């Protein structure tokens, strides 16, 4: 469970387990992501976010080590106070870490809000997101801080996007340090 501020997402990972014959892939693990919103039934927005999360996880999980299996990642939104997608990304990565799945790299989610006056705000609250001109969410990989996933809401200029990307890459270092600390705490003797 990851909670930056008041946004809270619970992630559960099951796998690698036996896959249904219709879903299994002959050479790699079949990854499935289910995103359940806090209220209501999952709709088109959740499906689109599930696709983003699934393809991001598929890029880092070494699925070829577990062919014909299924890995299910279930994310439940407990509360939403802004930056939901990056919270889901962080929860997904920590769940993958906790399950001990073989990964090619770690990833973290960072949301940048571009305010009307041009300043860049990281991890915006719901209020700041509404006032922002554009919101960019990036998934940054731990190897060389490359971009694994990018989505934007609202329009921005190319330079602004590059600035947000640079800010997100810098912030990624802090998040990876947080992963390290969490895992260390979990496995320490006390």
């Amino acid at each position, binding site marked *: 469970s990851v909670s930056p501020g008041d946004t809270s997402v619970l992630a559960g990972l099951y796998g690698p387990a036996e896959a249904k014959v219709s879903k299994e892939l002959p050479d790699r693990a079949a990854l499935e992501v289910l995103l359940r919103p806090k209220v209501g039934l999952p709709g088109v927005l959740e499906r689109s976010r599930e696709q983003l999360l699934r393809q*991001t996880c598929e890029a880092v999980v070494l699925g070829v080590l577990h062919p014909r299996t299924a890995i299910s990642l279930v994310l439940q939104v407990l509360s939403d106070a802004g930056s939901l997608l990056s919270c889901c990304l962080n929860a997904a990565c920590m769940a993958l870490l906790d399950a001990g799945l073989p990964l090619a790299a770690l990833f973290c989610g960072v949301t940048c809000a571009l305010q009307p006056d041009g300043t860049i705000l990281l991890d915006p609250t719901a209020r700041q997101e509404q006032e922002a001109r554009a919101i960019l969410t990036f998934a940054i990989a731990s190897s060389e801080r490359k*971009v694994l996933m990018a989505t934007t809401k609202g329009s921005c200029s190319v330079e602004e996007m590059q600035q947000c990307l640079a800010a997100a890459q810098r912030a990624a270092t802090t998040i990876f340090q947080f992963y390290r600390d969490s895992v260390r705490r979990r496995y320490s003797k006390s």
Partner: protein
Amino acid sequence: LPICSRTVEPLEYYRRFLKENCRPDGRELGEFRTTTVNIGKCLCSITTADGSALVKLGNTTVICGVKAELAAPAVDSANKGYIVPNVELPSLCAERFRSGPPGVEAQAASQFIADVIENSQMIVKEDLCIANGKLAWVVYCDIICLDYDGNLLDASVFALLAALKNVQLPLVTINEETGLSEVNLKQKNPLMIRKHPVATSFAIFDDTLLIVDPTAEEEDLATGTVTIVTDEEGRLCSVHKPGGSPLTGAKLQDCITRAITRHKEVKKLIDKVIKSITPK
């Protein structure tokens, strides 16, 4: 040379071509397929729609029909109309799509189109309002893929833009005395399209190579995709990279530059076609 079969080892077959900087269908890595667009009742043959367009990107064929209806605006946004896009991938367009409720690809594509309309502000919802709190237009945009050969998003955005430019809405007034709406079918006005977003999709191969406008075969072999939507001012309406191989900021910048060039080509094509169908 060892024999490499297209069906048995498709990736090796492709790598041979990519080494020579070209693709099996003869295109360069940065070259688009032939794009054709048919707009309007005569050429596109949807006579019942308010606006329609048929776009062919190589073999990928996408048709967009726009219908407008009247409805009461929502209580919390009394001065806004509605735009409802829907992308359908019927089972006739490709083997992988089964009949039944919309699959993940169709839903993700619908969400993408809705985001593009919202982000680019190509139609401002306030323009669709006729009378505050009483009457507004609901614009239904149905995008149906007739033949799927890769690069659905580019073709869909293009078809949507062309169809919306073709829409002619009748003038609607509210009679002061009776309070009822009167539709004047004789007087038609085009929709106010403020921005013209154009999508450009790339497929990522082996974590390094970027190829533009992938076919269905190339999409299956690719390790990731990127779609960039730009408008005429060179602003980014959407950077859609759903997972896949990681990219550096510089490679993303290359994609954006190519997308801006593509925007100019597409805009020229749309303007030419619209001019040819407008009665003088």
